[in-house]
């Protein structure tokens, strides 16, 4: 039976394993996984939602919960133990960083994902193309500047309640800002209520509190991703 890892938690007071999960204890850390007998499962959307539900349950039960990237497989319990033993200091540091904290996802969506192109008066096709291209570039710069303003405003409104912020400006045509806020669990509801839901030309969606997916990376992960 192979193990599909869900999350790491600190080994706090003895608790019953959440239904369907196996807890592998190693070096003061518990790795929560699901045993899967199927040799080559094909994952679908339900598997992703199940991953979120299981991690959310662990996050509710444990003060420090480090979600695993989906899907992370191990051949067996020994392989999982070896990985934890070899990187225990790194995992402990990451667990400390998210202890008692949760993630809020803030997504700012443009009301109109694309600026309308104003027809130019140029008669030559080449000139017309260049002017339209210029319009698009100016519009893109303007949107990017506006998105930065919105991201700054969100951080300002969130204020001192937020421990860390990661944000992407204009990650797609429809999205002005995609931000993740790491906040103490006790502040989450108040913070959600305080964040704006609309500004001129945009809608602002606030999701969560979620387990700290965005803040679960370790220094070693960042190195791997940058490779």
């Amino acid at each position, binding site marked *: 039976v192979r193990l599909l890892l869900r999350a790491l938690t600190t080994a706090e007071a003895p608790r019953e394993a959440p239904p369907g999960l196996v807890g592998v204890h190693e070096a003061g850390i518990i790795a929560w996984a699901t045993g899967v007998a199927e040799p080559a499962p094909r994952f679908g959307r339900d598997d992703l939602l199940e991953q979120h539900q299981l991690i959310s349950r662990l996050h509710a039960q444990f003060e420090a919960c480090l979600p695993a990237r989906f899907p*992370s*497989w191990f051949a067996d319990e020994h392989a999982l133990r070896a990985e934890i033993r070899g990187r225990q200091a790194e995992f402990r540091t990451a667990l400390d960083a998210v202890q008692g904290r949760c993630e809020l996802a803030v997504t700012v969506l443009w009301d109109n994902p694309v600026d309308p192109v104003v027809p130019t008066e140029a008669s030559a096709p080449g000139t017309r193309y260049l002017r339209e291209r210029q319009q698009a570039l100016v519009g893109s710069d303007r949107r990017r500047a506006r998105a930065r303003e919105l991201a700054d405003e969100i951080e300002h409104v969130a204020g001192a309640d937020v421990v860390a912020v990661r944000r992407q400006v204009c990650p797609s045509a429809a999205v002005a800002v995609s931000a993740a806020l790491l906040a103490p669990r006790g502040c989450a509801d108040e913070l959600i209520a305080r964040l704006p839901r609309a500004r001129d030309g945009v809608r602002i969606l606030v999701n969560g509190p979620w387990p700290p997916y965005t803040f679960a990376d370790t220094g070693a992960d960042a190195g791997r991703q940058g490779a």
Partner: protein
Amino acid sequence: LAVWRPVADESPILRAPGADEMSLLELADRLLNRGVVLTGEATISVAGVDLIYLGLNVVLTAVENLHVRQLERP
């Protein structure tokens, strides 16, 4: 997961995604792109994840990352 598909006569970038769609895509992005990375036996095997849709870079990035990481494996 909701999939943002363009309607028949619509370019994918012309329709703003709904709130529910966007929330699910943000969640999918986190599940696939973030979280702690452990080097398991076969970290990536998500060819069957039905995330194929048009237009949103967040999940496209996730899919691209999966391909890159698959290629990096010995």
